[in-house]
């Protein structure tokens, strides 16, 4: 899929911009950035490096070699095992997100070649219920890991999630164990697993498959942690330090390998996969 075509189709939401079609105000530096420039730079602000959130298809377009992507997710749909009703019934909530994203749940992915390395590429969709992990997300991750193991592919997961999905209760919690265990099929075959943590990745996703990768990359400025900042603030009743739980903070604390600019993401991932995928003759 050609990148520029994808970006041209992307519609920006919200109003209030002076010239919404042409200019985008950068939340990072307040600069008015020419939208075409932003698209060219993969939605990274050319002025300050701020990383805008991008749709899941963008990560597929960035990472998968052209013409190599073949989706495998989407065959399963969420149900309502608890009969959960909060401010609206869970099935209605799901229907709304399904309509908005065109997907059954918060994950998209499939087979791909990445720099020629056969891979399974999975991308979490923050636009669907905050990327929360319920039974379907857990099952797709497990199936993706099993597919990688079966077909000797590297596993690459791009995460974005507020954590486990409340509306499926303890079954969501169990997805943490399920996904973690499924990764062992990949590891038993000595296949590489690389995770790319994007803004935000918290809760049950961070506390399971996301942080068990051989190599963990994070996008600049991404919020990554176990508890959300609001919960921590309520618990300790103190202000949180500047940059707390951001990708750069995590790198400083030895929790991620590298903070990678989206414009360098593909080349970084390709280099790492070629160095870790078994039987890759040219390590360079």
């Amino acid at each position, binding site marked *: 899929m050609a990148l520029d075509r994808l970006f041209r189709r992307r519609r920006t939401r919200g109003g209030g911009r002076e010239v919404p079609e042409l200019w985008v105000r950068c939340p990072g530096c307040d600069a008015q950035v020419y939208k075409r420039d932003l698209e060219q730079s993969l939605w990274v602000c050319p002025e300050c490096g701020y990383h805008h959130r991008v749709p899941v298809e963008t990560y597929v377009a960035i990472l998968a070699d052209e013409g190599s992507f073949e989706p495998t997710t989407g*065959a399963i749909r969420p*149900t309502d095992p608890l009969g959960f009703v909060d401010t609206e019934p869970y099935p209605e909530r799901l229907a709304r997100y399904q309509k908005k994203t065109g997907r059954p749940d918060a994950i998209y992915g499939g087979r791909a070649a990445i720099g020629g390395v056969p891979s399974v590429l999975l991308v979490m969709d923050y636009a669907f219920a905050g990327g929360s992990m319920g039974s379907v997300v857990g099952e797709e991750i497990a199936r993706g890991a099993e597919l990688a193991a079966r077909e000797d592919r590297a596993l690459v997961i791009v995460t974005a999630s507020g954590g486990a999905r409340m509306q499926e209760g*303890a079954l969501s919690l169990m997805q943490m164990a399920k996904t973690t265990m499924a990764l062992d099929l990949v590891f038993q075959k000595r296949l590489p697993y690389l995770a790319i943590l994007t803004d935000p990745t918290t809760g049950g996703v*961070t506390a399971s498959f996301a942080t068990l990768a051989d190599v963990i990359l994070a996008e600049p400025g991404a919020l990554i942690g*176990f508890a959300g900042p609001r919960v921590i603030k309520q618990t300790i009743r*103190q202000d949180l330090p500047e940059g707390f739980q951001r990708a750069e903070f995590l790198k400083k604390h030895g929790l991620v390998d590298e903070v990678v600019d989206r414009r360098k993401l593909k080349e970084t991932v390709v280099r790492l996969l070629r160095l870790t995928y078994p039987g890759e003759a040219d390590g360079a």
Partner: protein
Amino acid sequence: MALEFERPILELEEKIRALEATAREQQLDLSEEIGLLKEKLARLEREIFQGLTPWQRVQLARAPGRPTTLDVAEGIFEAYAELKGDRAFADDPAVVGGVARLEGRPVVFVGHQKGRNTKENIARNFGMPHPEGYRKAMRLMDLADKEGVPFLAFIDTPGAYPGISAEERGQAWVIARSIQRMSRLRVPAVAVILGEGGSGGALAIGVGNRVLIMENAWYSVISPESCAAILWHDAKEAERAAAALKLTARDLLALGVVDRVVPEPGGGAHRNPEAALAELKRALLESLEELAGLDPDALWQDRYRRFRGLGAYQES
């Protein structure tokens, strides 16, 4: 400190005790009256406990006097030694564990540890572990594998601690590792939810071949208070959230999240810990018996199948 719904029971008990004292002091035969009241008490207890709401069970799971991990160790092991420290940074008092004998057989155990009073609870951080606690748990899993002895895990935490230092030291990373480490055990593993099973901080030591739950314990993806704060923007809606989350023992058994409910004596485990621990010990021994014939690969397969199958979805 009694829970609201326990009051009628406690009042009746008080009445019986007063009558018994009178009978003793004045050498009267009040056995008939006392007998009737005791029958009434049993009936009342049954009535109240059969109709408990999920929120009332959450309160029972938190009741002071409920057996903690160290109470369980005292109550069911013939002997045990606590081992301390994560060998990296500190000893986390919110997690305890060690080596023990259960009916003559050696086991390794670990569990969340709450205090029995406010002072102890502060020292134990209310059973909310830092990363060190999970590293201690993993160290004990290593020991169980090395010794080739069963691993027992007792879950009783509102959740892993959400604080700055915990985040700096990789709370999420270490929980993920602990889940992974436990799933890879080469020995039989049984986890029991004793009281509170709060989210990932509970699951970190919950990847057993068998997962048991005490009758009045809860286990959930999020605490009812936090769930209410997020969904209804009001922690006071916790009662609603507790019902919606299907977090009671019976609900979890129906969902397949737990394999067995350990019955509690009338009035709850906090009112009769000895009886509760006797039931727990029996359930643990039976679970270990079920797993006795399995070799390390079969144990891994058993655990994989158990967790791989959990979830609700439709093939379209």
